[in-house]
């Protein structure tokens, strides 16, 4: 009896959570059809109907594989960039936390990297490093490193003074303090940084490709290509996969964070 009520209430709560977004989806789909069908036939390429998008962009194997290959390439670029950003960002944050002069000397430049518009840096990177894999990865690193530095640094420095007292009482070394106190204290902030940076890195991989036209085309170049050739159906397909990648990465790092610190820290 009580389990029955439980199941039905869980059912109701999941209906409550999934219901409204589904309704919105259906309404948008309806409006989409309405607009698409009301366009002049010679202008319908601007907004093909959803089933045309599915036919051309998803059911057609050649087209689908082209986008999937691009997706794979974008994943490779953005994740390589992210890993490098994580390693570099955390290392520099740890060094800044250990010596005030490192922080005061270098932190301003981290801020500058963050504030200079990425579109202004990208062409220069291409000029220096070519238009292939390396440049794309470098763009990802530049765009995603800042949240890692700031979040790690904040986490390392926000240890309550009373916790430091415990370690001072026992004459702990700097390394012990870093490993047993500052680093664990920083973990929630670090994972929040990973999540933000992962999303930025995907954006970096896609944006970079609008400028770098050598090598295997990733999602960015496909988007540009489909736009130029007015292949609207495939443009939609590429768009869908770009968003899915962004969502997956954001969710994945959120999950990873909960896995590591969820036992003792409320992650949002």
């Amino acid at each position, binding site marked *: 009896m009580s389990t029955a009520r439980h199941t039905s209430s869980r059912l109701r709560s999941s209906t409550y959570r999934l219901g409204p977004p589904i309704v919105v989806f259906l309404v948008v789909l309806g409006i989409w059809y309405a607009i698409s069908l009301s366009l002049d036939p010679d202008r319908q390429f601007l907004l093909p109907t959803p089933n045309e998008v599915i036919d051309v962009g998803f059911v057609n194997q050649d087209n689908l594989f082209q986008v999937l290959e691009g997706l794979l390439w974008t994943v490779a670029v953005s994740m390589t960039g992210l890993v490098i950003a994580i390693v570099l960002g955390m290392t520099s944050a740890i060094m800044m936390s250990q010596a*005030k002069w490192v922080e005061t000397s270098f932190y301003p430049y981290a801020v500058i990297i963050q504030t200079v518009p990425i579109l202004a840096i990208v062409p220069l990177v291409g000029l220096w490093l070519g238009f292939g894999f390396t440049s794309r990865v470098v763009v990802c690193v530049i765009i995603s490193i800042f949240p890692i530095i700031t979040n790690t640094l904040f986490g390392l420095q926000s240890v*309550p003074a009373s916790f*430091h*007292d*415990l*370690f001072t*009482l*026992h*004459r702990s070394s700097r390394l*012990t303090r870093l490993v047993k106190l500052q680093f664990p204290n920083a973990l929630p902030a670090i994972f929040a940084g990973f999540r933000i940076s992962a999303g930025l890195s995907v954006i970096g991989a896609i944006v970079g490709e609008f400028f770098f036209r050598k090598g295997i085309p990733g999602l960015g170049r496909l988007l540009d290509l489909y736009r130029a050739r007015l292949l609207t159906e495939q443009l939609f397909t590429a768009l869908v996969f770009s968003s899915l990648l962004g969502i997956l990465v954001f969710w994945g790092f959120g999950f990873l964070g909960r896995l590591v610190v969820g036992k003792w820290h409320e992650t949002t």
Partner: protein
Amino acid sequence: MGDRQISNIQPSNHGDTRGGGSSSTLISFENVSKTFPDGTHAVDSVSFKVEPGQFVTVVGPSGCGKSTLLRMGSGLLSASSGEVRRSEGNLGYVFQDATLLPWRTVQKNVELFCELRGFDRSERRKRAKDAIELVGLSGFNRHYPAALSGGMKMRVSLARSLTLDPPLFFFDEPFGALDEITREYLNLELLRIFAHAGFGAVFITHNLYEAVFLSTDVLVMSSRPGRILKSFSIPFPYPRDLDLRFDPAFAELTGEVSEVLRDE
């Protein structure tokens, strides 16, 4: 980070039984004063000492320099003038807030001090297990601090120091944030552990009843800058139980302590 160093405290002079106190004195404050760099005069010429078996409680109004006194006693803070001498050996320290590391379970929190002192794993485990048992928290080893009540957190904090078997213990208002019932219960528990572990203690509180109930000696401090106004010897024998609070002699003593505080 430069100031995260422990200041050097004079080790008390072993073998010298004249003047300054016997060789077994756990800690002695001699005319200790503290003025902070911003000019705040927190502690003014405080002198007292703690012998083994003594439970010395300092009562005084909020902000009178009680925590500052303990910080100087532990070496976390250096005295502006005067001298602190502490015997060799570990110091137990229960802070005003429990200061449990939120990412460690109860077990791991209790093991922390042994870990910092470089004890091996099995020794750490054993000491932590004994200490957790002594404070009555067996079965909570795997809980995280967030899942504990305020009283339980304080027990964990106490257990953490007990693992080092310190001859001297500092308690900085450990029960200040707890409700009256929990406080009474933990007072009894603390006396039980005091009898069992046999440390000397410096205990800080706002609460007169707590002070008289627990201690062998009560020192009354003035408001800032904190001076010792008067010291009381508490004659009641241990073990004590809660009935002591209804003893007329108990009421009389707390009355006297309260008067000194009020005259301030």
